[in-house]
């Protein structure tokens, strides 16, 4: 990897981080004085950062030669062989992340102005959001693993603060703690990987580490790959550390949109893509990445079918979609671009979906129970339209974003070759079908059918209404993105060309399965999913008009009891069991593991604490015991 020093506007790329950070500082330290205009400052810093990022990207695009621009800021640590320079690396890979973070970030900031308008803590909220954006930008712009780690911890902290934003809800605080703990588990992996890099190479800069992967032993590289993967799993909510992500939906919805859908959870994908040279030399680790991706993809998709909480469904959908991305980047060179393209389009449509969900919640007095929605399309046309476009993009409706990028991943999976390729591809197709099912179910339950909400109390009547313009405009922009991004990124301005300085060009001449067939397969799965959803969810709500000419099968199916019996025995029961089992495992085993660890720690803490009896003599006893052990151990060491 060859870098060139920054010049021109790129030399000012540190402003990207500094601006939101300054915003956060002003808002946090300014106190109530900034209550009136604080949110505007928050929006402005991110918007300006977006403009700068755009300009930097344009400049980068125009550069000839190496496209990795290095900007040394200062020497962070320099002591002997320990040499960490704080600096930024602006290359095509970080550029797309910068645009995603600041672009989607700006929209969500704008949306939040409306969404949080009535919240007394709005200034604090924007401070945390700005803090998050700054940390996230540092994560993707840092030129070394240490800088990345700094950002990594920063986003963890900001995410913690934001999940627990409504700290009076016990669920929010619990969710925040859970997120924090599971993230820390992942962080241990990342930290260990960094220490190993230091011990082996004496540096953690991307240039230094990735340039000398050839010099490392295979075992070390595999260990590095697995440890980095552990970190990525924690941050991205991948198996087995996925359980925190759905719970994190306790935070305000813009947070879910920005952090837990569009940006932070993709940090794991960034980490693995950035560490591509390590995985190139560690095929075992790479295989584990695909397996993790495939497992998570299925878990997310199946669990998504089981929830009635609109945000949880979207959260599991996120888990599942990030599983796709992991699957893609685990495939190696053929998958990187596909995975990153999906990451970008997913950023658009999932953010749009979350904002839509937020808009619905806004209208429904913060209810998230889809069983209490229904028929909202009439009341909230803009939300419905934007949400619908996001939905279509997500399920891979032809020519919308998801179609292009998800197809590419599935295509790459088949192209992986061999049985593995077929299995992975098959999982991808199955996942697409399930995605269509649960998303359609969500659409039906929320927007169609008969209204099912209560009247609400007299003081807060439930009266669904369209959200104000400050909220709908970002949704519209994101919807446009959901529609167009896929085409733009894969066909009009191929991302593969833009990223070729990072990953090289991988043009496969022959495919295992012809792209056409894959397209047909995926669309078929999608249609099946939608149809199933219509059959099992949508149909019950619409008045059944019995047509004159029907086949016996359909007639049988339309017989309510008969159909229900078949449904239950053939599809719903097993499906429910599977979903329930998964949810159970998710809630009990993984949560159980987390809670169990917490309980064990707390219990052992309390039990160990009893040793601190307050009696001097007990303390002296402990010391004498320690002395005996010390003397014994030393004697044993010298004797042995």
């Amino acid at each position, binding site marked *: 990897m060859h870098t060139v020093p920054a010049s021109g506007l790129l030399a000012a790329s540190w402003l990207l981080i500094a601006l939101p950070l300054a915003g956060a500082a002003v808002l946090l330290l300014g106190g109530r004085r900034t209550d009136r205009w604080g949110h505007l400052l928050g929006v402005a810093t991110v918007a300006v950062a977006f403009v700068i990022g755009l300009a930097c990207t344009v400049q980068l695009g125009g550069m000839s030669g190496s496209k990795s621009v290095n900007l040394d800021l200062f020497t962070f640590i320099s002591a002997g062989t320990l040499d960490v320079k704080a600096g930024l690396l602006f290359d095509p890979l970080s550029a797309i992340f910068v645009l995603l973070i600041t672009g989607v970030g700006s929209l969500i900031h704008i949306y939040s102005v409306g969404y949080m308008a009535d919240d007394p803590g709005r200034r604090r909220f924007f401070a945390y959001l700005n803090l998050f954006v700054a940390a996230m930008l540092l994560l993707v712009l840092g030129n070394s693993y240490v800088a990345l780690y700094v950002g990594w911890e920063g986003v963890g902290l900001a995410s913690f603060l934001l999940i627990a934003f409504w700290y009076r809800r016990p669920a929010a605080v619990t969710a925040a703690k859970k997120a924090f703990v599971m993230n820390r588990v992942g962080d241990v992996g990342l930290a260990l990987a960094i220490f190993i890099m230091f011990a082996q190479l004496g540096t953690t800069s991307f240039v230094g580490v990735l340039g000398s992967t050839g010099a490392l032993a295979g075992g070390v590289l595999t260990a590095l790959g697995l440890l980095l993967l552990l970190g990525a799993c924690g941050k991205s909510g991948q198996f087995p550390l996925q359980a925190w992500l759905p719970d994190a939906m306790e935070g305000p919805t813009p947070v879910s949109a920005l952090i837990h859908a569009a940006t932070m959870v993709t940090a794991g994908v960034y980490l693995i893509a950035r560490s591509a040279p390590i995985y190139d030399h560690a095929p075992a680790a790479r295989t584990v990445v695909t397996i993790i991706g495939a497992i998570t993809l299925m878990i997310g998709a199946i669990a998504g079918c089981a929830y009635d909480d609109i945000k949880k469904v979207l959260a599991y959908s996120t888990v599942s979609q990030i599983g796709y991305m992991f699957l893609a980047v685990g495939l190696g060179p053929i998958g990187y671009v596909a995975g990153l393209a999906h990451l970008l389009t997913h950023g658009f449509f999932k953010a749009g979906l979350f904002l839509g969900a937020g808009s619905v919640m806004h209208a429904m007095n913060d209810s998230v129970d889809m069983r209490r929605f229904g028929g909202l399309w009439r009341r909230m046309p803009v939300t419905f339209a934007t949400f619908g476009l996001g939905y279509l993009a997500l399920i891979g409706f032809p020519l919308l974003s998801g179609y292009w990028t998800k197809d590419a991943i599935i295509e790459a999976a088949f192209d992986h070759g061999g049985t593995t390729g077929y299995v992975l591809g098959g999982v991808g197709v199955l996942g697409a079908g399930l995605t269509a099912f649960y998303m359609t179910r969500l659409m039906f339950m929320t927007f169609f059918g008969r209204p099912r909400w209560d009247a609400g109390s007299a003081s807060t009547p439930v009266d669904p209404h369209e959200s104000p313009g400050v909220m709908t405009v970002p949704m519209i922009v994101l919807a446009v993105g959901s529609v167009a991004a896929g085409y733009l990124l894969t066909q009009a301005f191929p991302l593969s060309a833009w990223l070729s300085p990072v990953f090289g060009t991988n043009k496969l001449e022959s495919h295992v399965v012809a792209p056409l067939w894959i397209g047909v397969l995926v669309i078929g799965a999608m249609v099946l999913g939608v149809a199933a959803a219509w059959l099992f969810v949508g149909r019950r709500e619409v008045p059944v008009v019995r047509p004159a000419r029907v086949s016996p099968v359909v007639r049988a199916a339309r017989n309510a009891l008969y159909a229900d019996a078949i449904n239950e025995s053939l599809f719903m029961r097993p499906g429910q069991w599977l979903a329930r089992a998964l949810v159970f495992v998710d809630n009990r085993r993984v949560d159980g593991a987390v809670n169990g660890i917490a309980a064990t720690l707390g219990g052992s803490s309390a039990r160990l604490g009893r040793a601190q009896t307050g009696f001097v003599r*007990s303390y002296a006893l402990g010391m*004498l*015991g320690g*002395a005996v052990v010390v003397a*014994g151990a030393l004697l044993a060491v010298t004797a042995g």
Partner: protein
Amino acid sequence: MTVLAAAAGTGTHLGGAETVVFWILGPIALAGALGMVFSRNAVHSALWLVNTMLCLGVFYVVQQAPFLGAVQIIVYTGAIMILFLFVLMLVGRDSSDSVVETLRGQRVAATVLGIGFAGLVGAGIARATTNLTVTGLNTDQLGGNGNINGIARLLFTRYLLAFEVTSALLITAAVGAMVLAHIEREPGSRRTQKELSRARFLTDRPQTLPGPGVFARGNSVAAPALLPDGRPAEDSLATGIEPQEIEQMPRPTDRAQLGSPDDALGTLDPARDDSPGGRTR
């Protein structure tokens, strides 16, 4: 000194005289240590410790350290242990420990660890030093003029810094004792001798106050004196110290009580003596 130095053998084995001294005083020292740990009464403990320290002092002298032996006996045993005894008397001589161990398993654990520690360290040292050759201190090392000069020479050369720093320790000790014991009066609150005697003669009781602990079972400053009838004498209480409720010792029941002061002074048992006038029996 030289006699002693000559008496101490060199080589691996020690002289017969020293062996005799060791085998007589060693057990006594050991008994003193055990006695200190096992005596219920704190004063007895202190005296047992004095016993051990005296034995050690003799050992020092035998082992070519006459100066240290003297210091051990004069300063350690003579001064420091007396300080301990002072404080014990201040706290109350009869504050004996109860036999019941309140911490569960403490004694067992302490014994096991003690045996373990002694086993490890004692056996280790014994193993490492069985063939320890005794070089012995020669006259030159003793400074030519004896042990004291030798120590002084080292004190002011090799250990000069430690010697100087020790002064900090002594100042700390003095300041510390003063901080915790010295009550500074508010300026101007101190009355002159004249004022004091005038004030005293204005009261009903011009004579001196009874001292604490007079006729009492406890002799701590906090224990009030007892009047002959067994009541506490209110004016015997020291100022600045909270009066202490003396726990009455159980009345001796064996023959030791015959002729004991209690026969003459009356009983302290309130069950038998509740009238202020004297004995009810």
